Each structure stands twice: as structure tokens, then as C-alpha cells.
């Protein structure tokens, strides 16, 4: 148990969400079946914690966030945020939370950015002085000064994302849900967003729950990561532990002079794919690539090579597969 569980801000206890899906199987014929999007999940997040919430597409991440924000009602289990049942008191909780969906925007598309902020001012009934102070701070930290008068539809993706993050924080929420906040952003924008989030968490102790496909988001921001797959929590702990638990692998891509039979690599490295003169080798993420590269260079007509880091989807997929194996044996 970690020490944070002493002051739980978000509490989930056996939370489930079951959807009835009707599928057309023929003319006028429909088949009903139940989908467990979230299957008995329990965790707590302490006030001021910054937690990564990851998993492959369709794992149940967004469903969890929708339940936390009160948009969806859980089918079972107990869920509390700041002691409030979100789906019953959605509007009351709305004043205390901020949400940023990377692929959606809360901003007024056709109007200058500042108009959306004025609207937030009214919507959350932020006291005037507080609003001014927060806006000035956001403008400075997120570099929005030049953008305030620009219609949102003319902003770049990175600019819009920064604008959205500011909009979600003007009312000093106690908890911030971020769904893919860096998706599609360039390196500079990503860095800006991450720096800002780190500072926000340090200065205001804002609780942050972050879903992402970008391993670097987690590495740079979160001390704790939760992995969900097929609606179940499969990992909850430090990021370092995730790589071990997932026995993740890196990939070495080599281009040879010509088409050759698969390279005979020293185990545990092995060829996983061959396409013409190009071959893919998998080897443990913890091992150095140097030895392997030297050996291939010595024995094969090497033209070019590159190393690919394990992507989070692969880590999780592997982890899940192993979990399933263990359950069988």
C-alpha cells in the first residue's frame, strides 16, 4: 500500500460499466449482447497525486473518465470524487473539476479565444479578481498572449490545446482529467504542456489523472501509473515496474545489402520479421543494443539500422498476454 491511500480524493470500489449493444445480424434481426467496458475496477488517488492511466484503445479508459466526470452512471460498485457521487451531482462536481479531451475542444470555434474565457468566467462564477489573476497566470505560463484575439478555428493544434488547458483551469479545479493532452502535438508544444502540468501540480497540488499513449508523458509527469486492459486494472505502481512486469522489448531494424535468410542472432534476441533486405529483431529493453549491432555488422553486409523503443501498447499487450497465460497454467 502506498502512503497516499490515507487521503483518498478519488475512490473506486468494484466499479463496473456494462453496455447493452444491439447488433444487426440480418434484415430486422438484431442480436443483443453485453459488453463489460469496465469490469470491477478499484483504486484510490490521493489529493495532489499525478497518475497516468493507460491502456490500449477500447480498454475502458474513457469510460472510466466519463464515470468520474459524471457523464456516465456506473452499472455497479461505488465511485466517489471528493466525497461526491459524480453521476448524481454532476453539476456540483463540475465546479470542482477540469477536463481536457485532447481530441475535443471546449473552446468556441468561431470566436476569439478570449471570448471562451469570458464565458468560463460566467459559467463557473469565478470572482472577478480571481479570474483576472488566473487568466494572467495562464497567459504567461502557456504563452497565450498573442492568441487571445485569434478565432479558435485559426489556432494550430498545439495552440488550441494550450488554450483548452487554460480554459479547464480558470476556475481552480481540485482535480484535472486529461485525456490525451499531447496527442498530435510537436515536440515544443509537448514540452510546454508538460512543464506547465508539472508546475501546476507542484504549486497548487491539483490532482491530475492523465490518459495517454505517449510513454514520455508518463515518464516525465507521473510517479504512478495504472494500466487498464479489457476493462480490468492489470497494473498499478511505478513506471519502472511496468517495464519489468511487461518484459518489454526494443526493436532493431536492419537494412542489409540484399535479401538474406533471417539473421542468426544470439538469444534472447531474435528475428521477428523479414521483408526483402530489411529485417526486424526484438531484444529485451533492459539489454544494450551495442553487442547485437556489433555482431550483425561483423557477420552481415549491413547498410543501415535503427532502434525502436517499445511502445506502450506493445508493453501492455505483452503484459496482458502473459497475464492470460498465467491464468491458464
Amino acid at each position, binding site marked *: 500500500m502506498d502512503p497516499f491511500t490515507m487521503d483518498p480524493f478519488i475512490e473506486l470500489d468494484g466499479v463496473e460499466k456494462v453496455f447493452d449493444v444491439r447488433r444487426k445480424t440480418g434484415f430486422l434481426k438484431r442480436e443483443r449482447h453485453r459488453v463489460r467496458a469496465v469490469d470491477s475496477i478499484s483504486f484510490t488517488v490521493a489529493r495532489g497525486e499525478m497518475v497516468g492511466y493507460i491502456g490500449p484503445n477500447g480498454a475502458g479508459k474513457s469510460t472510466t473518465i466519463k464515470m468520474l466526470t459524471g*457523464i*456516465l452512471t456506473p452499472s455497479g460498485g461505488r465511485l466517489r470524487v471528493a466525497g461526491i457521487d459524480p453521476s448524481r451531482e454532476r453539476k456540483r462536481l463540475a465546479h470542482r*473539476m477540469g477536463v481536457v479531451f485532447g481530441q*475535443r475542444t471546449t473552446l*468556441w470555434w468561431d*470566436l476569439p479565444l478570449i471570448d471562451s474565457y469570458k*464565458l468560463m468566467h*460566467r*459559467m463557473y462564477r469565478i470572482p472577478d479578481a480571481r479570474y483576472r489573476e488566473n487568466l494572467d497566470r495562464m497567459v504567461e505560463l502557456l504563452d497565450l498572449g498573442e492568441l487571445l484575439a485569434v478565432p479558435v478555428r485559426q489556432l494550430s493544434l498545439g495552440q488550441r490545446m494550450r488554450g483548452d488547458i487554460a480554459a479547464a483551469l480558470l476556475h481552480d479545479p481540485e482535480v484535472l482529467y486529461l485525456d490525451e493532452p499531447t496527442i498530435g502535438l510537436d515536440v515544443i508544444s509537448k514540452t510546454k504542456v508538460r512543464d506547465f502540468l508539472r508546475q501546476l501540480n507542484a504549486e497548487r497540488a491539483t490532482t491530475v489523472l492523465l490518459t495517454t499513449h505517449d510513454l514520455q508523458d508518463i515518464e516525465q509527469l507521473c510517479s504512478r501509473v495504472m494500466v487498464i486492459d479489457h476493462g480490468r486494472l492489470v497494473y498499478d505502481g511505478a513506471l519502472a515496474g511496468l517495464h519489468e512486469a511487461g518484459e518489454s522489448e526494443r526493436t532493431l531494424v536492419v537494412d542489409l545489402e540484399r535479401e538474406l535468410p533471417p539473421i542468426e542472432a544470439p538469444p534472447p534476441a531474435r528475428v521477428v520479421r523479414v521483408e526483402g533486405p530489411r529485417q526486424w529483431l526484438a531484444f529485451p529493453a533492459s539489454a544494450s543494443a551495442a553487442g547485437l549491432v556489433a555482431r550483425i555488422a561483423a557477420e552481415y553486409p549491413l547498410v543501415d539500422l535503427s532502434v525502436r523503443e517499445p511502445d506502450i501498447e506493445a508493453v501492455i499487450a505483452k503484459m496482458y498476454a502473459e497475464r492470460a497465460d498465467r491464468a491458464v497454467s
Partner: protein
Amino acid sequence: MGSGRLYLAVAVGGFRRYASYRAATAAGVFTNTVFGLILVYTYLALWEEKPGLGGYDQAQAVTYVWLGQCLYATLAIQGGGAEKDLMERIRTGEIAVDLYRPVDLQVWWLAGDVGRALFQMLGRGVVPFVFGWLFFPMALPTEVTVWAAFAVTLLLATVVSFAIRYLAALSVFWLMDGMGVGQVLMITGVFFSGMVLPLNAFPGVYGDVVRVLPWAAQIQMPADVLMGEAEPLGAFAFQAAWAVALLALGRLVQSAATRRVVVQGG
């Protein structure tokens, strides 16, 4: 009071949003003027053959045409107001963003649509109407009280129009797509609002039915109040009754939609 300022801000935003599309507005003014001309000459030919059709004389028929062109975009007779944005937001799942705000969804969209309607009337509706007034004999009142009553019917017409379109938009929660509903809205809107012919001119049982449908609150009522063909209080009551009934139904459907329907998209 605090929320009053919020919805006022939303209405102002709705107004400014549409104001930001100047070329579309200019094109709309042109279109409504041309359509007005076509309809005026058609009506004049018709009224020549059938004088007093629907209880209107020729000047009233002409007035009806230009008022219809003025209110066409204002009341989003063919759709294209708040409901279009709302359908798209439901379809894409973008509606989730609206749902986690501490606001009333229906009042929020109504406020935005009223702002839109006000812009469409001033920016797009007034010019064709003035054009008609300059070049054709029209039956317009001189009393300020009649114009005031007309203004009230316009506001109520806007609310009824919104309420119909809001209900239609909510259906996308179940249908997952707004294309079909949009087309139904367009056809019913054009026909039952009296864009083709005044509802007064429809004969028999058919006419009796269309004149009590909610669409009758949109162009027919304001036109009849403006031209002294209907008692203002009766018109207000008719419009208000439909507004209340449809908004209430909208709230009912809205709570069902948000409670049990999946918000689309990841």
C-alpha cells in the same frame, strides 16, 4: 442572476459567431431577395386568379412573402441553427464536453440560438424586407403597439422553432446520425411553416390541421399579428402553449438521452 449573465453571454456569443461569417450573410441576403421576387410574382399571379385567397388581399400576400424571406434564416425554417451544431456534437461525441459543464444544456442551446436568430434577422432578414417595402405595395401597420405585439410573436416564434429543432437534434442520441432527421426538418419546416403558401390558404381539413401544428407559430402567427388578421393575445397564447409543451418534452427527452445513451467516441 448569476446564470442570467452566463446565458446572456452565450446569446451574445451566438450572435457574434454568425456575424463572423460575412460572405455567407451577403450570399443569404441575395438569395432571400431573389426568392422573394420569384414568390411575389407567383403570388401576384395566383391572387389575380383567386382574389382574397386565404383572406389576404394582394398587398397582404406580398407582405407575407417578404416577411417569410425575412424570417427564413431567423427561424431556421430549413434547419441550420443550433440543432445543426448539436447534432454534430452528439454524432462526434463532442457533446461530452457540454455535459460536464455546470450549465443547463437546453437553456444553453436556446440562448445561443436566440443570439443566432437575432443576428440572422438584422444581418440577413431586414434587407430583403426593406427591399420589398421599397418596390412593392405592402400592408404594414402604422401603430407602434402592433409592431410591439409583432416583436413579441417573433420572440415566441424563435422559441418554438428552437424547441422543435432541439427535439429533432436529440434524436441523434439514438439514431447516431442527423442526416435523415435534418431532411425531415427541412421538408416539414418549409411546408408546415407556410414558406410555400400561407397556411390560411390551405383548404378543408388539411388546412385546419396545419394551422394548429407548432409550425404555425413560426411565420403565420407573426404575419397575421403584423397585418391585423389575428388577435395578438390569442397568437401569444397559441405560441406560448407550443413553446412550453415542446420545451418540456425536450427536457424529458434530454434527461432520458443523457441518462441511458452512450456518449459516442473514445
